[in-house]
């Protein structure tokens, strides 16, 4: 379970290296405004990534988070415009996310449909459903209390970061210290062993999707209140960004190993690259290519470490038991 630690360290190392280069070439990167911008843009990504970490730890995947993000953001705006109090609209966004996530989770856990299929369907259906419902129009003319949820911009920025940090710390702590967290790891590592140990693996599969949906709704809300209109195509490509951050952070795509702290460094590394390019004077079109290279490096590191671990465990294991007739 703590094997991911070396990965966290090496990703953090890569991040530090990047920041050192940027500091030498373009110190402007470390201006207060730029750092605030980076944090604000990535706090919602982090919140979704925390949920995604749970999903991937159980050996599943959720590619519908981008679409859920859009539905929840637009939903919150529509509710607010309809005259509902802003807190109700905010709760509505989280609740919508949780319901959509629970649909994914129910199909995956109880009907045993592969999660890639379930969430692919959800991704397409929600995205196109939203496009049809809004006719592509943005939600505009939001009530004045909606933006920054009625707080001042600076105090709200601090609040977003606090919320993201709070969720991250809570889930990270829970994964380490709660029986439920242990069950998540066990489910992803060896479902049969977990089941035989009396763990209701289906229930955990259901809940990780539901939690991810709720967190996505929250992230969408925190993101949408930063602007005075909500685009109906928000969250496009979010799923890939989030999955990439989780994988780069050392969580095995096959489940069972990984950590929230890894996901945190993964989100920061991938989030810091894009703006850094701008400051380094490199064409921003390189951003995706560099992110891709980081993901590839992470996956290769995964395979290599698995192979090394496998070899060392083989060395210790005794002769094969398959010699019987």
């Amino acid at each position: 379970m703590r094997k991911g630690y070396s990965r966290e360290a090496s990703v953090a190392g890569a991040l530090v290296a990047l920041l050192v280069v940027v500091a030498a070439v373009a110190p402007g990167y470390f201006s207060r405004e730029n750092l605030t911008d980076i944090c604000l843009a990535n706090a919602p990504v982090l919140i979704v990534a925390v949920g995604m970490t749970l999903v991937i730890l159980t050996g599943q995947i959720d590619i519908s988070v981008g679409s859920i993000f859009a539905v929840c953001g637009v939903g919150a705006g529509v509710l607010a415009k309809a005259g509902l109090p802003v807190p109700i609209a905010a709760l509505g966004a989280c609740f919508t996310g949780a319901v959509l996530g629970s649909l994914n989770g129910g199909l995956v856990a109880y009907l045993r449909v592969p999660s890639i299929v379930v969430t692919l369907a959800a991704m397409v259906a929600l995205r196109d459903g939203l496009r049809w419902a809004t006719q592509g129009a943005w939600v505009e003319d939001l009530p004045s209390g909606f933006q920054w949820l009625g707080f001042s911009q600076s105090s709200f920025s601090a609040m977003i970061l606090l919320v993201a940090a709070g969720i991250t710390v809570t889930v990270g702590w829970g994964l380490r210290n709660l029986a439920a967290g242990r069950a998540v790891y066990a489910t992803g590592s060896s479902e049969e062993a977990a089941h035989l140990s009396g763990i209701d693996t289906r229930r955990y599969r259901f809940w990780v999707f539901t939690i991810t949906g709720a967190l996505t709704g929250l992230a969408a809300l925190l993101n949408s209140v930063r602007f005075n209109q909500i685009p109906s195509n928000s969250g496009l490509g979010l799923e890939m960004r989030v999955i990439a951050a989780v994988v780069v952070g050392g969580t095995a795509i096959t489940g069972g190993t990984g950590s929230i702290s890894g996901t945190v460094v993964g989100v920061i590394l991938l989030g810091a690259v894009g703006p850094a390019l701008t400051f380094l004077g490199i064409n921003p079109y390189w951003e995706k290519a560099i992110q891709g290279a980081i993901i590839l490096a992470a996956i290769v590191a995964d395979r290599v470490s698995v192979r090394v671990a496998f070899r060392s465990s083989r060395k210790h294991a005794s002769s094969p038991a398959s010699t019987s007739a």
Partner: protein
Amino acid sequence: MLAPLLEARSISKAFAGVRALNGVNFSLFPGEVHALVGENGAGKSTLIKVFTGAIAADSGSLTVAGREVRHHTPATARSLGIGAIYQQPSLFPHLTVAENIAWTLEGGGLWHRVDWKARQRLAAGLIRRAGASIDPERVAGTLSMPEQQIVEIAKAIGAGARILIMDEPTSSLTDREVESLFQVIASLRAQGSGVIYISHRLNEIFSIADRITVLRDGETIGTRNTTEVQPTGLIEMMAGRPSASVFPKREVPHGAIALELRNVSSSAAGVRAVSFSVRSGEIVGLAGLVGSGRTELAETIFGLNALDSGEILVEARRVRIGSPAEAIEAGVAYVPQDRRRHGIVLEMPVAANTSLASLGAISRWGWIDGARERILAERYVAQLHIKTPSVDATCGTLSGGNQQKVALARWLATSPKVLILDEPTQGVDVGSKSEIHRRMVDLAEGGLAIIMISSELPEILGMSDRILVMHAGSIGGVLSRAEATQYKILSLALGHRPTGEMARIQE
């Protein structure tokens, strides 16, 4: 006399220092059905793999059709006309019979044009030669078991096989289906092919085989003409003398009945009307051949298979066990056979593996008390002598024997009343093996009721107070420690009741 189709001389093979075959001799003549028998682990499968080229023998010679074969591989086996039909047919379920046959037989590159008519003719012809009639256009997935086997046989004939190896072909067939398979074998024999026939069912062997070779512990015990040997004599050859190895068994007093099964049946698991009871302090051995339903019975007790009828009582209280969680709640623990897949979680440290089935006991409000978890794990590391650098070491880095002990620790941590061990020492080195046996006796002394499934007869004989022998999903017989012999267990496992006289001769 005709020259043999296949002749193996002093074949030996070892896996990681363990002898699987030791100087085995075997021959097969044209038009002969030669049965290969032996208990679990006797070396039958290994010998077959040597014939099919799946594994290379360490020493010995293999002569096929008068020519000695060196560097035997699956490809040379096929070109020499050796074909194998396994217990489970391996057809592509979505392709038709003709396509399945063509897939193995048609050569040509990726781009050669398919001649559908020729394909059909080929398939129909081969199936006819196998003595059956199946429409080549049928999809393989819709065929019955014996029909699938006939397609496998047709594939082998089409590949020019004159030596057909059948590994437990009848294990999933009904009596009538067996009959039709035997007709196919008879027609192959009439065409001059040789058949190597592996089965646990003695009556089948006596009705189909011309000669019988018995393997035991990787050695040829003997080859007999079917007409010259009786079932009892054959079982005697298979069983041999009790092994001299010493088991750390102690007599401990037995307490009240801990587990009782009354007429338990589960059609999903193939378990039929099983009744028995186990007392606390008692070690009950569950013997039987692979496929006799031992593991399925254990899984049924543990709530993995649905109960159709019957009842299970733990400490004289009727319990409803529908899931592993309920089984643990009721006081039943199950250490499964394949520990790498079902037993321990390789990525997790020893401590987390130990506590996995008893997380409730070491947490409050769902919060794991790390200190209590460590104490729990350290207690079992000490009690079971688990060799690990610390309880934080990842289980994947431990040896097989120690992994097994961690799996055992997990179940002991649930404070069970009944412990079911499925092949507890399989794939475990000798030292850990007797270590595990010693712990089992300690646990029994502590009042635990233990059910031990094992394919190793010496282990069953050495460790059990009482032995239940399973045959075809039900209890074929019960033997006390005093009366049990390898011979009697094997007889019951093969569905052959020993006569009183034969049993006495054995003692």
